[in-house]
């Protein structure tokens, strides 16, 4: 959404209720504004499909899809809440003086205090306990989506909202998400490259080997959660850091037939693991020493170029990629380690108390 269009909405009241006050940001097809619910005085976020995109079938499908998914996921504690939705009739004066009317759909969402990416810009100020708690919330958000058969496909810090009351993070921007129970919205080729940001994309999508298989899409989410973990530690995108130029890879892969792409990717799996090694070294360096080993192991598992290796195996059988309970537990362990370490530090720095005199009759 460009600046001129943003200006149009400032001061407009949608459905006689939501007074738009300021522009917050723009996505591919839409703009997000801060608004106030005139009835409850509550601040909300309004996501409006830009009128340039309102003619695009893809944009409409994405916007309507997000609305439907937010309805489906309402009540999930770690997915952003939909408050309302509707269509606003936008009236614009054409050069001849005639009035042109557009129906512009919008979504009303709960207003966050910011996105995780903003916090990570000065990540040194963000303690590890807080970072891990936010990460746990976001893993739980994706887990909740998975329990409803929804894959996110675009997990990154830009799409992770941070709230101060109650404190926590929620997963947002479900425009690229998909309910796997629904029929395919696009032709099969559209799934080869996925729908997310190339900077964070797993190798199988850069080689255009993605599929409509729900398990494959869940494994993409696992990679993206690994990439988010990397972002939380380093502030930058792992795929681009490790593979240098994802766009060049995708462009080259596009010129190969599907079978050749699959063969190439299969052959390169170990080479890709080596390519990710400097990124793991960097991650290790950024992690506090007491978390290093388990955190690096977890990152390596989640971002493995072989999608099947991203899920832990139990007695030779892989867990289903949908269930992220194991990942939540792993993050809990990291949180406990961090809490223990912080507590231990406090114990060391706490001034020693004067010893109480021993009670009578007790052994000393």
């Amino acid at each position: 959404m460009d600046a001129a269009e943003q200006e149009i909405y400032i001061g407009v009241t949608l459905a006689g209720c939501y007074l738009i006050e300021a522009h917050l940001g723009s996505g591919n097809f839409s703009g997000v504004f801060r608004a106030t619910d005139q009835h409850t005085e509550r601040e909300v976020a309004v996501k409006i499909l830009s009128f340039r995109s309102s003619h695009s079938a893809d944009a409409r499908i994405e916007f309507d899809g997000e609305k439907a998914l937010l309805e489906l996921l309402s009540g999930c504690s770690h997915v952003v809440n939909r408050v309302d939705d509707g269509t606003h009739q936008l009236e614009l004066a054409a050069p001849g003086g005639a009035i042109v009317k557009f129906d512009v759909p919008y979504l009303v969402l709960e207003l966050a205090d910011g996105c995780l990416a903003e916090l990570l810009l000065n990540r040194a100020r963000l303690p590890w306990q807080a970072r891990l708690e936010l990460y746990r919330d976001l893993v739980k958000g994706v887990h909740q989506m998975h329990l409803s058969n929804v894959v996110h496909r675009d997990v990154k810090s830009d799409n992770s909202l941070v709230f101060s009351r109650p404190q926590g993070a929620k997963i947002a921007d479900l425009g690229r998400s998909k309910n796997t129970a629904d029929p395919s919205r696009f032709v099969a080729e559209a799934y080869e490259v996925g729908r997310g940001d190339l900077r964070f994309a797993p190798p199988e999508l850069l080689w255009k080997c993605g599929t409509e298989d729900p398990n494959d899409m869940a494994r993409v989410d696992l990679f993206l959660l690994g990439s988010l973990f990397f972002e939380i530690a380093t502030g930058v995108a792992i795929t681009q850091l490790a593979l240098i130029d994802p766009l060049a890879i995708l462009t080259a892969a596009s010129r190969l037939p599907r079978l050749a792409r699959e063969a190439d990717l299969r052959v390169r799996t170990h080479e890709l693991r080596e390519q990710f090694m400097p990124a793991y070294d960097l991650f290790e360096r950024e992690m506090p020493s007491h978390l290093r080993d388990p955190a690096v192991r977890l990152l390596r598992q989640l971002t493995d170029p072989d999608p099947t290796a991203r899920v832990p195996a139990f007695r030779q059988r892989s867990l289903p990629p949908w269930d992220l309970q194991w990942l939540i537990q792993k993050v809990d362990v990291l949180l406990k380690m961090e809490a223990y370490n912080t507590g231990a530090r406090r114990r060391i720095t706490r001034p020693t108390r004067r010893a109480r005199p021993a009670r009578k009759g007790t052994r000393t």
Partner: protein
Amino acid sequence: MSLSCNTDNRLAGPVGTTPIQFVSPPTGPPVPDIGATSFLEPGPATVPGYLAIARTHADAASESPTALARLAQAELSAGEVDAAVSAATAVLDLARGEVDPSAEFAAVQVLRAGGAAEKAREHIRDAPKTDEVGRSFRARLAIECGDLDKARLLVEDVTTFDGLFIGGWLAIRAAEYPRAIALFRQATRVAGPTPDVLTNTGYSYAALGHLQHAISATRQAQALAPHTRMIAFNLVSFYLAVGDYAAATRALEPLQQVFPDDVEIALALAHISLRASDRKGANKILQRARTSKSWATAPLVRRAELEANLALLRWFTGRHSLDAARKIVLDQLAITDYESLPMASLLPALLPKFSDRRLLETLLGRLEARHDEKALLFLRVHDAILRQDAEAAVSLAVEWAQSEPFNPVAAGLAIQLLGDLAGDREKAIELGRDAVTRAPGDSLLLNNLAYVLALSGKTREARVVLGKVTTPDVSPAVIATRGLIDLLGGDVSGGIAEYERAGELAVQQGKERVAQLAALNLDVALRRVDPGILNRLEIEVAPQFEIPSSSEDDPGIWLLATRAEHDGVAVSLSETAGADLPSPRRQ
């Protein structure tokens, strides 16, 4: 009798004629090979959402290296290369004051992707050298610049996986194999065994001559990455070096399962069959590959190599004349615009005579226009032989053997030329003993080493070395060398009998030239036997070693004559055109 320029058990392809490889640290994006130069398609006119967000963040936090690094990544991802380079440069400018290795690393990667690696290098040079991750990364960039000494300094004492891997790779480059093994072991302790580390460990072991260790490490690498060609082909080469043809074939099975019709794998399999003296089997494999589905989609070079190898096999099996085989190979080489070095490696076998010199010079010129001089050493040695430039031939052969330590053909030729042309048998033995540790199953190498050992009077060691040849009775050269050892070891009758057997076998195999060489070799060898013994056995040897004028065009005869001169034998050219083959004359 030693063998030179003999490739009758070698095919052009991924093993045999291509050196064993080790894995280099990745220095660029792993872009799939599409066989043609690609260009970026014009992107969408609108700014993608992620880029708009990154720009907003960078505007709001212009002093944050993370914000700028994210912006650089986003700009690059959107195809905005100039903006990406400018944002990444801003990160490095900021990083001079405030150290943020993640942002710095991301910025350097963006600069490399954006074609501004020089800026990254400048930054690397100025950056502090305390951080281990930064040092290994800087070492990677130094390798890209070709500054290996700088890279070595940077990774000294680095204990990260990446640093240790780069250190090991640099040690291989400097031929410090024990140090390389130690560094790779340390890297394994840091990050567990990875295929690349195991492959390079195997390479280092093989370079030291510990082939069983090399096989063991490379097998582990294959278990972790069963579909990697380099690993499979290295393993095949190691098995061939120890003469285990069945295991070499098995090493290709994981690749075959994924690429059942692959031309490159077919070439490797045919090479193994040929090494196992199964010419028909090799021919069958290549014929099958030529009618397979993937033949149609195989790269032009692979198809040309297949055609050239088929022509060669048909010549070996007598279905083609040398001229016909040569025409096909030269045509295929021209079709690929002289790109295939494995195919070029067949030229010495196809242009064996002094009269082929002009043609070889022309071809060498065309190949030199496409390839590095060092990659063409095998052909430059042959060119020097055809020019009868003994000094150049010897020095180039030694250089070739040193540059390709795993190549038994190079070592075999160097041994022969050192022994015959330079008369420096001690150096030839030293080189041969070293090479045999890396290829203990190679019959050509064993034969040439045994030959030079016998000539320098070490007949006992020569017998032991020749005893390691797994199929001694199929090669006239090996039988002739056994004859030489017998002859110089005192068993003159036995030696003569072996030489005669070698000649007969060569005739049976249709190798008239080899039979002639065997006879001439016997003639020269008899001159080193005590005349008293020869008198007792009633064997008469002419006072001069006569070279038949019909053999004037044969470099093998030139080598033999030069060797005879080194031994103090008078050499003359037989005046009778097409003179009979010399043979021991019993009174």
